């Protein structure tokens, strides 16, 4: 049985140093929930992209990590929230290579490909929230004899 201890947290995203804590927390939480190395790496990388967007484009905010459990499957949900300028054109922001700054423009679209579930809410002038979810892959188990 997995517990949420050390998994659930709300971390500030105000500086480059905070990005380091975010990555560290996501790595530890994912490991604790039983994610494999590849899935851990994907999740940490997605978190790194989204947290940096929160910091750079959203002017700072926070990440909330939540432990999900459904029918024996373990999941991790990360919500990145800021009260920045918001995104007027979501389709454009989500397209590969679009950047309003001098980045590669691969963060948002790439993060979407790295997770199982991706959801973005943004209101221009109010801020942005991006939620991503990953589930631990369940190895096919031999059925228990009745």
């Amino acid at each position, binding site marked *: 049985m997995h517990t949420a201890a050390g998994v659930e947290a709300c971390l500030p995203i105000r500086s480059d140093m905070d990005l380091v804590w975010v990555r560290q927390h996501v790595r530890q939480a994912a490991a604790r929930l039983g994610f494999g190395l*590849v899935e851990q790496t*994907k999740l940490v990388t997605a978190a*790194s*992209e989204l947290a940096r967007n929160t910091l750079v484009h959203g002017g700072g905010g926070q990440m909330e990590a939540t432990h999900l459990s459904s029918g024996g499957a373990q999941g991790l949900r990360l919500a990145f929230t800021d009260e920045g300028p918001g995104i007027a054109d979501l389709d454009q922001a989500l397209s590969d290579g679009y950047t309003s700054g001098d980045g590669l423009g*691969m*963060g948002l679209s790439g993060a979407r490909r790295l997770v199982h579930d991706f959801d973005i809410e943004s209101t221009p002038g109010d801020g942005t929230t991006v939620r991503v979810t990953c589930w631990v892959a369940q190895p096919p188990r031999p059925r228990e004899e009745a």
Partner: protein
Amino acid sequence: MPEHEADGQLATPTHEVRDFLHRRREQIAQRWADEPLFRTVFTVSRDEAVEASKVVVDALAQVADSEQVEDPDAAGFSGVREQLARMGAARSRAGLSNTQVASELAALRPPVENLLASDLEDAPPEHLRACSTALTVLMGTLRLVAMQTALSEWQALSDRQRLQLMEVATPVIRLWDGVVAVPLIGTLDSARSQVVMETLLNAVVDQHARFAILDITGVPTVDSLVAQHLMKTVAAARLMGAQCIVSGIRPAIAQTIVHLGLDLDVITRASLADALGYALHELGTDIVNPGAGQR
């Protein structure tokens, strides 16, 4: 008994405390030497702990003499700052948190207060109260001075470590004539990658390198920013006439890079050895493995 009572004059509370500290210097030092803060730091001999305690008692007396019991910048403290910093640092190294060090400092107060109370047993109660208060304030200020010193030490240390990390984490290794390598370690933030780029370009020039290997085995996360920094370094090296090879891309990172959609437009090899092999081959200096021979 305080002598001034003889001439019917009570000293000011702070000066009473000063006289008390002078008079009881030895006893206070003896008691402090048994407190964790002194006992665990000055471990060579108990005398050492007693001597160190006396230095602190003298500083307190000097501060009381100048009537500055509330002032952490009082001149009297300047003599003990360094010692307090060393003691604090020693306790941190022993694994104590700042809060724990602060409570060890707080533990120095009761023994002194008890001594003062027994010394002034026969003094008017309000005088005893005033003196106790002055002593409490003085000990509080001592704590403040110690914590300030510890914090500034800690700050200086972390600044120093950050700088050191930047330099230490980017040693350029000359692997072969014309081949240099940088093993990258830790978070490749903007400041670090700037240092990496400069160090590497200097090495390329100094060593007339034709190949520069960037080994990222020690980089835990490769996201779009790290990739961008890598590509800038690669492009700059190319301008200096050196070809870059990125090595040490672990399987999990390789998969992540692909999903992220990043196109590392550079030659990559699994390991540093493979990267060196490639460079040597290009330079026409293949190493022939005497056992296996060429494939």
